[in-house]
């Protein structure tokens, strides 16, 4: 396993695109979250108590929800990294050199894991810094109270990345794969879901994965928003991730390279 990680790191560390996308992700989270809590409402809306969204413990919910929009960038990064292996025909060369197809996929999954852990760490650090600055008298129990959203963010990110991995394996061409990834997640699934009964549309892959962390602002207008993300969506998200991994393995093992 250590060997597989070392191989994957050798591929990405000198790769400029890798760092540019990660830097963009970090910058967006920092900037957007710092800007978000400087929003001032006029007096008529002051009863909404915006401050609670940016202090412990609700901060974790707000932050992970905002961060989930930028996970898209990491998905695009994963698609680029996977399709590169087909464009450069290095997947083929890796196999010829003696890597098994299962090892090749395992290496990619470990890389996905590292990217998801990195993203989670960035979210965690942003949260801690902001929370400690904004919260009056933060105590440990307050800080930890809604930390399960951070766990959920990690699982959600991993699920997005597994979907990106699968798309990359399926399509093999970066531009096309990114197009399909965006088209499916932003247009096809929402449109298809609109025509379906809720009992089905609520469990389509993207709806499930993005539904893991729901918009906390909906509370303001009286919607019931789950106070913990670890429910049925969590199980489904893990299930979809495993499905994407299995699908990727099937594609890799059945196809000629």
């Amino acid at each position, binding site marked *: 396993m250590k*060997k597989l990680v*070392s*191989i994957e790191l*050798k*591929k990405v560390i*000198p*790769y*400029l695109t890798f760092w540019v996308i990660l830097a963009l992700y970090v910058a967006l989270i920092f900037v957007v979250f710092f800007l978000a809590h400087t929003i001032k409402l006029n007096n008529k809306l002051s009863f909404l108590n915006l401050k609670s969204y940016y202090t412990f413990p609700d901060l974790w919910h707000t932050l992970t929800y905002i961060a989930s929009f930028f996970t898209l960038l990491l998905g695009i990064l994963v698609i680029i990294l996977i399709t*590169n292996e087909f464009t*450069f*025909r*290095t997947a*083929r*060369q*890796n*196999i*010829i*050199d*003696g*890597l*098994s197809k299962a090892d090749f996929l395992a290496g990619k999954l470990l890389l996905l894991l590292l990217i998801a852990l990195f993203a989670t760490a960035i979210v965690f650090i942003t949260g801690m810094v902001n929370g400690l600055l904004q919260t009056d008298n933060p105590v440990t129990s307050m800080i930890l109270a809604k930390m399960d959203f951070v766990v959920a963010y990690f699982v959600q990110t991993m699920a997005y990345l597994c979907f990106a991995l699968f798309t990359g394996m399926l399509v093999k061409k970066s531009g096309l794969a990114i197009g399909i990834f965006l088209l499916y997640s932003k247009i096809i699934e929402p449109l298809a879901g609109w025509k379906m009964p809720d009992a089905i549309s609520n469990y389509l892959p993207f709806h499930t994965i993005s539904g893991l962390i729901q918009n906390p602002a909906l509370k303001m207008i009286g919607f019931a928003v789950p106070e913990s993300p670890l429910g049925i969506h969590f199980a489904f998200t893990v299930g979809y991730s495993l499905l994407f991994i299995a699908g990727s393995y099937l594609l890799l093992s*059945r196809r*000629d*390279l």
Partner: protein
Amino acid sequence: MVLQLVDLSKQFGPMFAVTALNLSVEQGTIYGILGPNGSGKTTTLGMTLGVIRPTSGQVIWFGQPHSGNERRRIGSILETPNFYPYLSAANNLRIAADIKGVDYSAIERVLEIVGLSSRKNSQFSTYSLGMKQRLSIASALLGKPEVIVLDEPTNGLDPAGIAEIRGLIKDIAKEGHTIILASHLLDEVEKVCTHVAVLQKGRLITAGSVAEVLAGESVIEAGAEDMAKLITVAKANPEIKLLTKNDMGKLELTFNTNVTAARLNDYFYKNGIILNHLALRKKSLEERFLELTKT
């Protein structure tokens, strides 16, 4: 036995790229797989290296069914050199070394062999085609593999590059590696290989030692004032196997036995014919190849 193919077939849709191929490669040989473009050479090598799934049949490396681990004992290039364009040559080879479980100290040595030491820190994308080709040979040499598989290693190179790569292959063979080389160039197979299998449209036409398979028969061209008489006299000689008239109006003769030009000249002279043209030449490999692949 290094490699054995048993009834190996590959079907792409309705088309058979390789049909029931049986081959065995012995230790220490330089084995050429010769065939025109599209004859199934790369497909065959792809199946032996686990990147193309056979439709049916078996690949047996080192006497064991294909598992994947044995590929670490094989150094291969298939078609084009495949590397990460944004990485330096040395970093590309480090990835290959990691996969093969080879110590990094081997990298310097293989770069030295192919003459790329001075450019090892340049990005792969800045390399010329010849350098790319040499880097892939360097990669194939990592860890002193027992077998080296090369697919069209001189494709697209200039004459100097071709000569260099061929020299390199022979040097490698001297170190005791078994080499399997696919090529559409007869001349390359003849110059480099000890054994050859000829493929056409995915079928094995013939296989054996290069001397046997590509043995060029001698042809003697003869001409005289009176061609009609020359033909009659030639037909009367039981040693002459075949006679045809070529485009130049000369008679081409092949023989059942080893006949020298002098003996033939003597034979015609004794039969009252003065030859005005007599030339000995080897039947060209192209002719031999066309002959083999005609059926």
